[in-house]
């Protein structure tokens, strides 16, 4: 008799498995990006599979699928993302990696004007099964007391400018489990989907991942922790921050519900509204900067459609309206942590912050 324990995967390993399983299933899926494999063109010298992305999510794929389907690109985001758009319109299902979300400035036209609008502008003539994967986020409040992180141009979140574009689906997984499931859903989606993968989830995201293929549906938020007194809406790493805050709040007798948004666009308003209808209080926690943020978008929707269910004004906890500072001590202040969430909740309940 055998017991099959579900093995644990890291965030990057889960994404790797999703891509691998889908690529086995569908020969039209290709992967493109800078050093998605590494050491391009050097297999005959004994160098292959040298890099594999910032999360190592594409490590090993070239060994199975070869350089015809795993394509290392030069540094040319506008060009190769555009090639991804064209390929998606003509029979392939490309997965294009933009190494860091901070680089979307180099190729934003291909996302905003091209991929997102093609199907609409052409009256439905073409599908656009393009997946864009990109890494985001600060190192956050770890234990560094000096020194710094990746700085202003390698630490941003920016999904607000992506969610803003009609026609583009935006997903932000938070665990190894939903990373695999959402990646599979994104690949199977016939329209453009961008997946934002936090660079520094680390052990928080590691967890049990079934070996078989499964899809986590796009457009569905999840209740990560049931509660009664306040809804904490989190995105990506902030979902874990909300869970940590909930643990601390429980000690004080406040029972928080944590909702993991998962899909920023199209947003699952129903789950959030239903949660607030029971808890009557909402805090949205978002690592992005505040102006025109997803946090404020969620808050506005709930203030509009859930007004009668609210016992207190909605609070948002976000990064400040500044670039990301290099300094580790400043970056810790920049990145929302459990303390800020707890403080917002206490304020909401009229307890001293």
């Amino acid at each position: 008799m055998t017991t099959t324990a579900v093995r644990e995967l890291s965030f990057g390993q889960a994404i790797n498995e999703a891509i691998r399983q889908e690529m086995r299933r569908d020969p039209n899926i290709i992967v493109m990006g800078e050093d998605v494999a590494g050491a391009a063109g050097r297999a005959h010298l004994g160098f292959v599979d040298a890099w594999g992305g910032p999360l190592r999510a594409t490590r090993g794929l070239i060994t199975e699928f070869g350089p015809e389907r795993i394509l290392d690109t030069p540094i040319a985001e506008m060009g190769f993302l555009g090639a991804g758009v064209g390929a998606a319109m003509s029979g392939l299902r490309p997965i294009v990696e933009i190494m860091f979300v901070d680089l979307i400035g180099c190729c934003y036209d291909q996302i905003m004007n091209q991929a997102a609008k093609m199907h609409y502008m052409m009256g439905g003539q073409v599908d656009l099964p393009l997946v864009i994967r990109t890494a985001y986020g600060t190192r956050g409040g770890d234990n560094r007391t000096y020194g710094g992180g990746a700085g202003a141009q390698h630490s941003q979140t920016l999904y607000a400018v992506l969610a803003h574009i009609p026609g583009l689906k935006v997903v932000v997984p938070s665990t190894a489990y939903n990373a695999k499931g959402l990646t599979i859903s994104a690949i199977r989606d016939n329209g453009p989907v961008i997946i934002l993968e936090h660079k520094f989830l680390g052990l928080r995201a590691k967890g049990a991942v079934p070996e078989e293929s499964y899809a986590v549906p796009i457009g569905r938020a999840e209740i990560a922790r049931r509660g009664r007194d306040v809804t904490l809406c989190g995105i990506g790493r902030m979902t874990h921050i909300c869970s940590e805050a909930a643990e601390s709040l429980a000690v004080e007798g406040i029972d928080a519900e944590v909702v993991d948004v998962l899909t920023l666009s199209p947003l699952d308003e129903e789950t959030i509204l239903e949660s607030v209808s029971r808890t009557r209080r909402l805090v949205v926690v978002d690592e992005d900067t505040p102006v025109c943020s997803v946090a404020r978008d969620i808050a506005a929707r709930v203030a509009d459609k859930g007004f009668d269910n609210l016992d207190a004004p909605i609070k948002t906890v976000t990064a400040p309206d500044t670039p990301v500072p290099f300094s580790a001590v400043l970056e810790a202040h920049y990145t929302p942590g459990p303390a800020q969430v707890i403080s917002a909740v206490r304020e909401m309940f009229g307890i001293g912050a």
Partner: protein
Amino acid sequence: MQNEAIRSSANSAAGLAQPLPSREKLLWMYERLTLIREFEERLKWLVETGVPVGAVHYYTGQEACAVGVCAALEPSDWIASTHRGHGHCIAKGVEVHRMMAELYGKTTGSNRAKGGSMHITDVRVGMLGVNPIVGMGVTHAVGAALSAKVRKTSQVAAAFFGEGGASIGAVHEAMNLAAIWKLPVIFVCENNGYAQATPVEYAVSVPRIADRAAAYSMPGVTVDGQDAIAVWEAAATAVERARRGEGPSLIECMTYRYYGHHQGDDTARYRSREEEQGARERDCIRRFREQMLDQNLLTPEELDAIESVNHKKIDEAVAFAESSPLPQPADLFTDVYVPARDGEQQ
């Protein structure tokens, strides 16, 4: 211009298109070469002993490129750099103690701890900034050259980029702009053979980046980037051309980074030990020293003294960084917007 042989400096001054730099300048060059090497080697040691400096990209091995180019520039000229920018900073005159303090995240740093390694800037010495978004620094250098032309100064700008950066659209747009407007800019491509783990023979469509200069109607030359005099010679020629109002030039420097793309990168996954060893055998600092001694241009005592001073300089830079203050939370909110300057209305 196609497939031109890589230019190295001959062992005698007779082979050069330019008269050799002055003795003072040669001493300066050795001082900068060794200061960069000392800084980066010390930084690597600090990183490996746990100092949390964030993402760093060692310039070790490429010193002759930065120093050769900056030797041909005036303090009032501009340069713009890439993520691998410590060498350019030091060559242009950014103070090493302010660089080290920046890496340590202290308020005495060049960028007041707001920028870090990838953004070190010092406009007082004409350093427009280390810039890690590939190709963006090149466009800024073109802008500085435009500024010089409009304001009718004799300044020039040098734009550093890698052979990886040669694939990004912004660099091509910048070159075309510089060519049509005859801007005083020198495009310096440091071809170290690898963009992260991607080799140049895969990513670049021509045998020599310098071949692309013809596409923008500017002169292009490939030089031995591990030969500081060869780099200086090409740069001095390009600078003279720019100051005469004849427009931009492209210099491709064949060079090598001894270490990986960023700290902790395992180069064995994409390049051979033999190749790395070969590059070290052509070490630019050792070769410069040999040239200076063989040609009786400088004395061994002078060169040794320079190295000794630089070693102490880095000791002091680290001590300065360690003892400098950390930022306060309120510093997070400074310099978001640009304030009115004296006498201005806003």
